[in-house]
């Protein structure tokens, strides 16, 4: 390294900081423009963000572990979401209400999530190097299986008693399943109001607990192995780490957590859109994580919280701001969809170009060496 690099100017450092965090900065700018236009009160915004934070954070946290294991953004978290939904449908049909209903759903979702996670992990091990696109297609594929189960097998093979859930034709589940009897049961327990802002204390405690578990997990042997596998599969294998198994475990954990997250999410919403709740959830969670400054190979708990607040701030203000500017509320709706996809595109492009830049750097070093020798 030349001495020039060591005395890199403050400006250059700032530039690098800006480049490394370009996505969050971009989002802060978008929000800064949109908030005054939308004209919402601060209290309203805060309330909304707190609600959405409680609703979504758990789901987004489920993405962290596969990133640690080098498997990229787990588009297959949708699988967990589907497992959670199936568990909730059954719980709703058995009329188990309130917190016991949530707990039972979580327990029921575990075997489903583990099974789906194992399948997804096995498939991803067969497609090393393109985990993301594969997990993305896996989520579609399993969505087909989910529809097969929910639309044709529930009510015919799997007993469903209540006509409020079942389609009139005798099998299949309705478009919406009401969870009125467990709606916000966790959010409302111990909830406190601070100046008109409702804080769902228990939900945040659960999220905090998961954060602690993730922090603890990083310190375990398995966590260490995952980091090793994520950085260099071959080295880890040479050192005796069972690479394939470790990768599968990371996906299984992610799927189970996503299942729990989906149950928490839906208890807040109060109803299940049987055929669409899960389909977009993966995309929005990934977008939120990326907005928080995470990348395909690096993500922290801080990214999750920053991402969930910024992304949902944008989500709330964009339609109103769009309506203000153009007089059409749909513009803002489309705008936020565009931004969600756009941010994932940008993050993926940045990740790939960074990989290529790392490869090219050695040549420059050689050239410098030779020039150094000339002097």
């Amino acid at each position, binding site marked *: 390294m030349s001495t020039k690099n060591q005395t890199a100017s403050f400006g250059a450092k700032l530039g690098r900081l800006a480049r490394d965090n370009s996505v969050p900065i971009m989002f802060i700018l978008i929000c800064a423009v949109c908030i005054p236009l939308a004209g919402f009160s601060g209290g309203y915004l805060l309330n909304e963000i707190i609600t959405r934070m409680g609703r979504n954070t758990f789901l987004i946290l489920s993405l962290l572990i596969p990133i640690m294991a080098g498997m990229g953004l787990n588009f297959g978290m949708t699988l967990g979401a589907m497992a959670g939904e199936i568990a909730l449908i059954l719980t709703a049909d058995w009329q188990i209400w309130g917190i016991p209903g949530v707990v039972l759903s979580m327990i029921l979702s575990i075997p489903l999530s583990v099974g789906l996670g194992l399948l997804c992990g096995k*498939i991803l091990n*067969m*497609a*090393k*190097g*393109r985990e*993301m*696109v*594969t997990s*993305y*297609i*896996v989520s*579609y*594929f399993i*969505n*087909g*299986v989910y*529809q*097969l189960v929910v*639309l*044709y097998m529930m009510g015919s093979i799997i007993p469903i008693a209540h006509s409020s859930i079942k389609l009139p034709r005798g099998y299949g589940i309705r478009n919406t399943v009401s969870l009125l009897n467990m709606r916000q049961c966790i959010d409302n327990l111990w909830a406190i109001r601070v100046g008109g802002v409702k804080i769902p204390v228990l939900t945040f405690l659960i999220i905090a607990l998961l954060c602690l578990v993730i922090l603890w997990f990083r310190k375990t042997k398995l966590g260490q192995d995952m980091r090793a596998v994520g950085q260099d599969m071959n080295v880890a294998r040479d050192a005796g780490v069972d690479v394939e198994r470790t990768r599968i475990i990371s996906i299984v954990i992610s799927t189970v957590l996503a299942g729990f997250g989906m149950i928490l999410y839906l208890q807040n919403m109060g109803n299940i859109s049987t055929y669409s709740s899960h389909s977009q959830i993966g995309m929005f969670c990934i977008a939120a994580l990326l907005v928080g400054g995470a990348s395909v190979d690096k993500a922290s708990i801080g990214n999750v919280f920053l991402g969930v607040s910024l992304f949902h701030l944008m989500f709330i203000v964009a339609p109103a701001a769009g309506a203000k500017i*153009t007089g*059409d509320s*749909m*513009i803002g709706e*489309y*705008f936020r*969809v*565009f931004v*969600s*996809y*756009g941010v*994932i*595109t940008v993050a*993926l*492009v940045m*990740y*790939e*170009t960074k*990989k*290529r830049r790392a490869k090219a750097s050695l040549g420059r070093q050689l050239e410098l060496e030779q020039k150094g020798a000339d002097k």
Partner: protein
Amino acid sequence: MSENVWTSKSLSDRLRGAVASFGLPRLIIAGFLLLLFIMAPFVGVNFFTQITNTLNRFSWNAVMVLAMVPMVHSGCGLNFGLPLGIVSGLLGATMSIEFGFTGAMSFVMAIVLATPFAVVLGLGYGWLLNRIKGGEMMIATYVGFSAVAFMCILWLLLPFKSPNMVWGLAGKGLRTTISLEGYYDKVLANFLQVRIGDLVIPGGTILFFALLAFAMWAFLHTKTGTAMTAVGSNPTFARASGINIDKIRILSVVMSTWLAAVGILVYQQGFGFVQLYMAPFYMALPAVSAILIGGATVNKASITNVVIGTFLFQGIVTMTPTVMNSMIHMDMSEVIRIIVSNGMILYALTRKSEAIR
């Protein structure tokens, strides 16, 4: 060693080899379709009507499947970014109507007007894909999605005036579906239509596809086409042979984007409507799985793959609802379509031999 590979193999080995190279999923799909055809008469479904439907849907979709070929050949993988081309086609279609063209002329003008958009978008898209070699498929998917979402905003904002297209009440913003009656509804299908009893063959549309397919076949036999195949087969070899890989890849992306634009126009003329907003969103997946069902892999595809794949895929899509419905009174076609198409893509993505790139 390898010189006498062929002679030393027994017949059963060869058969197994043939099955392996054809791919088990493809055999299952082909067998399933065959079963549907055989069962059709027994469950009281008119066989020829089914064939007609299948041929119709084949003719609507084949061009979009053909759009996969150039990018597979140049090693850019499956074009999950197909919606980008579709968006160009939609721009051509809406502009052609806006400018007041009618009948067959509106179809020609739609293609003409879509071309500059397809070329410009294709150039940008190709440039992007060159910067992210190795990660094409995932990024292509999201480029397609972003483009569709972006166009949703534009459909609302662009100053279209034609009363056939804008919302009647507001007087601005395009409708979600626009009828093509009086424009190019069935212009190709009705041209050179062949009727044999119940069997109706949309001669014009199939001829149009055949022309494009022939052009593609011919292109692959030219110097540049040969270079494109080589780039896809082994990019390092091509580079060592003095080929500008990036240029060839961009060319393939532009071709693919343009074909997607034309493909959606052909689809519209058969379907009779222009679908805007979120409609192009998931149009890439059926096209991708169709070509894979036809025997293509992530880096090899031929015109035959396109024809066989589109026919099998559309055959299943059209046959399952009717046959299944009359058999067990359950319409499971949508679910079967999702499982078959995505399962096929998964199969292609997880095959060892293709995992190298």
